[in-house]
Structures are given as structure tokens and as C-alpha cells.
């Protein structure tokens, strides 16, 4: 296998992978290069692919004067709690949708979906009034709730899809062996479902990490999240490219590192799955 297929691998793996990766990563590279270029080089007569004059001043400024750590912490807090809340609620719901037959199932499923079809911009005014009346305005909780409302339907659907593709024979076998439903769920279904839960979790995390429209309304100076802070760098008098791109890079990297560890779990889930299967 290994000998004859090396050339083959170049054709079927490395070249297509290289092309797609180039497309995916180049804008990120360009963001990074922009963040370390002095402004005069940005609008210079020639485009430079690596700055002639390196400067990391924008990074220093972000963490020094700007206290970028606070919005990062806020974003992390909101995204983490949203992920936990959403995953719990939607795993339970998805399990119900795939393993039980009950009245109104189709209607409930459709309701979840229609929710995501409705534009956020029309939710703003009523949602703001609701948040204010329960005294949650300008707290991280308000963001968690707002985000959960659009990540839950998505996650319920996603997990329903994964669960439907998992043969239910697994847990039925376990239940015949005497395990009750809860045990069958936690011991058999959950481990096999783990990769999917992680993938869904990544989705939820990223959505909450990057959301702007609700964040600008439901936070104030002390609870600001990253996207709002970044947007503050675009005023009427133009974009502060250096700070904005530097902020962007700082935002992207933790998510990628997080995913680097999460994708290991994806593989662990795989081995767990194959053992059971």
C-alpha cells in the first residue's frame, strides 16, 4: 500500500489539501501581515507580501492601553456558559426526538427550525424590552440567553441528525442486558455521540464568541465582548487597520488552539465508537 501510493497520495491528498488550505488560510495570513505593517506601507504604491518594516506596536497597544483582556475574558465566559447550557438542553431534546415517538413531535421540530429562519434584527427591540424587564440588561446572562435561543434550535437539529445516523441497536442491546435507559444513554450513546457533541459545541462556542448584533445592545463597558471592542476601532474617520487586524488575530488564535485539543477528542470518540461497533 505504502509504496505505489505515494505518488497517488500527492495527487489525491497533498495537492487538493494544499489548494484548499491556501484559500482558507491566505486571508488570515493577510490579516496578520496587515497587523504588523506600518500604515504608510498599507497604502503604498506597491503591495508588499512581507512588511519592509515590522512593527508589533498594535499588539502592545491592545494589551496595554486598551485592556483587551477584559473583553476576551467576557467573551470566553459567555461562550463557555452558552456552550454548556445549549449542549445540555439540546442533547436531551435530540435524544427525545430520535428515541421516542410522541404527539406533536413534528410540530416541535418545525418550531425549532422556524426560530432560526427569523432575522435577528427584528428580535432586537422586543428582546431588549424583555431583558430590561427581568433586570438582566448589561449582564453576561442576557447574552447567554440570547445566544442560547438561536444555538439551541441549531444544536437540537444537528444532534438529531447524528443520533439518527447512529444505529439504535446499540442501546437496545444494552437495555436487553439489563441497563435502564439512563444508563444506556450515559454508558453507550454518549461516548459514541461525543465527536458530534464536540463538533456542535465548537459551533456554539464560535457563534457566541463572534456575535455582534446582540452583544452591542446587551453589554456595557464592563461586560463588552470582543466583537464590540473590535467594532469600536472603526470610527467615522476610518478603520484603524493596525489595531483591528491585531485584535482579529488575537481573537482567532485561542479558538484554533481550543479546537486543536477538541479535535483530539474527535479521534478518541472515533476509537470508542469502533470498539463498541
Amino acid at each position: 500500500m505504502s509504496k505505489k501510493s505515494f505518488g497517488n497520495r500527492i495527487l489525491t491528498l497533498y495537492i487538493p489539501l494544499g489548494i484548499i488550505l491556501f484559500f482558507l488560510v491566505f486571508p488570515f495570513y493577510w490579516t496578520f501581515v496587515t497587523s504588523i505593517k506600518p500604515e504608510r506601507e498599507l497604502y503604498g504604491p506597491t503591495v508588499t507580501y512581507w512588511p519592509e518594516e515590522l512593527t508589533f506596536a498594535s499588539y502592545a497597544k491592545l494589551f496595554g492601553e486598551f485592556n483587551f483582556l477584559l473583553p476576551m475574558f467576557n467573551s470566553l465566559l459567555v461562550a463557555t456558559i452558552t456552550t454548556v447550557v445549549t449542549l445540555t438542553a439540546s442533547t436531551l431534546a435530540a435524544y427525545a426526538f430520535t428515541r421516542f415517538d410522541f404527539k406533536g413531535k413534528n410540530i416541535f421540530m418545525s418550531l425549532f427550525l422556524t426560530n432560526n429562519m427569523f432575522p435577528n434584527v427584528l428580535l432586537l427591540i422586543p428582546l431588549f424590552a424583555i431583558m430590561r424587564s427581568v433586570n438582566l440588561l448589561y449582564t453576561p446572562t442576557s447574552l447567554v440567553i440570547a445566544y442560547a435561543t438561536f444555538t439551541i434550535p441549531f444544536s437540537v437539529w444537528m444532534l438529531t441528525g447524528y443520533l439518527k445516523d447512529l444505529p439504535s441497536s446499540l442501546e437496545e442491546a444494552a437495555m436487553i442486558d439489563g441497563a435502564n435507559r439512563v444508563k444506556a444513554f450515559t454508558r453507550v450513546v454518549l461516548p459514541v455521540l461525543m465527536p458530534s457533541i464536540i463538533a456542535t459545541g465548537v459551533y456554539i462556542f464560535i457563534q457566541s464568541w463572534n456575535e455582534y448584533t446582540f452583544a452591542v445592545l446587551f453589554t456595557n463597558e464592563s461586560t463588552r465582548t470582543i466583537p464590540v471592542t473590535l467594532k469600536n476601532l472603526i470610527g467615522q474617520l476610518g478603520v484603524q487597520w493596525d489595531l483591528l487586524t491585531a485584535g482579529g488575530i488575537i481573537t482567532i488564535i485561542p479558538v484554533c488552539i481550543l479546537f486543536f485539543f477538541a479535535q483530539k477528542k474527535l479521534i478518541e470518540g472515533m476509537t470508542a465508537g469502533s470498539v463498541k461497533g
Partner: protein
Amino acid sequence: MKRLLFICVVALISAVLFGCTAARNSADPNANNSEDSTGSTEENNSEEGATITYWYWADNSEYSQLMQDIIKEFNETNDKGITVVGEEYPWDGGGYSETLFTAAIGGGGPDVASFKLTSTPLFTANDLLLNLDDYIANWDKKDDIDSNIYDIMKQASGTDSIYLMPWNTQVLYVYYRPSIFEEAGVEVPTTYEELLTAIEKTTMDTNGDGKTDVYGFGMRGATGGQEPWGSFIHARGGSFDDLTSEASIQGMKDFIDIYSNGYAPPTASTDGFNEIIANFKSGRTAMTIHHTGSSAEMVDTFGDDVSAFPFPAGEGQWTSMGDTENVIFESSQHKDAAFEWVAYLAAEKGQEDWTVATGNVPVSKSVQELDFFQDNEFMKASIEGMPFAGIVPIKDTTTEWISTIWPNTVAAALLGDKSAEEAMKILQEELHAE
């Protein structure tokens, strides 16, 4: 089994409780307005020690710092123990106003906020702003602000009342590069015709490769472009009130010709503020229209090789006056304290600190007298433009007209999809729609 059941029950109960409270409370958001925002009852009587929130946007991080410093100084120096809490919000291409509106109508807005004239009809139609007439009448520095500025504030609300506290203005003028003018052999234009000629002549192929290297005019076709565009319309004798008049259409034709003859960069149909400034700063354009807000960086880039002249007169003469005001919300519990703060920004130390550092034109006459403003050539071009400076008519349609109708219609005209007449007809109908 038990654990799972337990989790479900807890989640269920908390959600139900939460939902019910919310539903009950949200049933009548206006009724709650007075009772729960601070919980105390004697606010209006005792302004001593009042805390007010102030929303503003910052055009860059220096302005952000500057505003925080001004707030700090006000908090330390005012003798009424007032504390201002500044909350910065993104400008977001004008999205700031929608955020402010959503918060205010949802009952959670600030006490005071920085503001743009164009949003006035929306806010006053919903009774959100405090009428400042009495406050201004009793204000000792009332006369420090020119009466025509108060008149503009009244016009914007469409009433005889003032809802906006003036803060600073920006008058548009033409930036040009003396070195390029010299190379092209043109003088600073004093009439509209001369300006058109100058635009044509300064469009040059400097290295002889058959491609244009310097464009005469950095045209703004994206949102915000209606301001410089208005100068062309008025120069032909047209006006915003009748955009379909022959004179207005002729102004539009001039504007289109500049683009189609290649005197403006081909990206002009979508160029916004960033692009026109970047093009000017990189030497790609010989002239562009903006205000003092960008003068500091222009001088940074070019030193002596940048100067300014007011938009010259043709049949008519007009330039756009930009503006920033402050408003106090009707829902504020500390209106008197709030007025102290907006007055500080309008005519006291706050006015001086802000306008000197940002290069905006002060509204306070005594601040205008300062040497700083008298000696600055860009400030001079602004002040020369003052007599014929105006605003786009402020109607309830104006925001939409500026943000989507104008850019899309004018882009269609520039790209040749619509004739000047067709475009002007749309612009007229949409701006003056009842």
C-alpha cells in the same frame, strides 16, 4: 435515572419561573419606566451626587481616551457632585443611532448621548428626547453659541423647540495637493467652472505608460457621498428641494461626467471615507472633499504639500455642514445634572478640550476666538465655508435616503445603468416621500 430527572425538573422549573416573570414584566414596558430604573423617588429634587450615563462613539482610540479624560475632569471639577459614567459604543457606519434608539425605546437608554442631526425626527416622533428650550433660556452661556446653530437644531426637529445641544461641527472643503497643481499648471480654483477644469487637468499619466496615475477628484460614491455631491448640485443652481430641476440635473451630469471621463478613480462608485482618504494620502488623487477631522493625518503625510480651499461658487454655492450634538433623554432621572454635562461640552472646558484635540469646529464663539483656530489654514477654509454651509433636509426619510437610496442610485448612474434624469427622479421621490 434520578440525577437526570432531577436536572430536568430543575431546568424546567427555573425556565418556567423565568419565562413567567419576563412575560409579566414585559407586558407593559413603558409603565415600568418610571419605577424601576433607579428605584429611588427623590431623584428630581436632589441633583447633588447624581450619577448619569453618557453614550458616545469614538472615531479612533485617541478620541476614546480623550473623552474619558474629559469625563474624568468634569467629575472632579464640577461643584454639584455629578458623576458621569461614559459608555463607548461603536459608530458602526451609523448603526450607533439604531442601537441608541433600540435601547431608548426599550426603556434602557442612557441619560445623555452624543447624537447626529439626521436621527432627530425618529427620536422626537417617539417622544424620547427632552425639550431643552427652558434649560437653554436659563443658561448663562446661551449667547456664546451663534443663533443660526440653534436655528438648525430647530429645523431638524421640525418644530420651534430645541432638542439637541450643539457640540461641534465640521464644514466640508476641498483638500488639494499644491505640487500636483503645479505640475498640471493649474491655479487654485475660484469658480465652479475652474474647479471642473482643474479636475480634468490634474488627471495625469505621470509615467507615460498610457494609464492614469493621478486622478483629479477623489469622488465618494458610497454612503456619505451625498455631502460633496450636494456641492455640485448647488453649484449649478440646483437644490435638495427640487432635485429634478434642470439645474440640479446638470449638476448630476457634471458629477457623472467626472467619473465616466476617468477623472475619478474607477472604484469611486463604492468608495467611502476610507477609500477617498487613502487615495488622497497615497497621491492617487489630486483633490478630495472632507473636513478638518482628517487634517492632522494629512499634514502628517504631506507636511506643506497639502492645502485647502472652500468649494467655489457657480450659479449657487453650498457645502455640507457635518455635526455632532448631545441629547438628554426624556426618561432620565437627573435631567438637571444631565444639562450641566452637555453645557460643559458645549461651551466650557469640555468644548475647548474636545475641539482643540480633534480639530472639529467649535460651536462656542469664545473658543473659536482662540489662536489655535484662527491660525490653522484648514480651520480657515472651514470658517470661510460657514456662510454657505447647509445640511441635507432633515425629514423622517433622510436616514434611509442617505444610507441606501443615495449610494445605490448614484452608483447606478455612475455605472451607466441609469440616466442622470432617472436617477434624480428617484432621489427626489424618495427624499420627499410623504
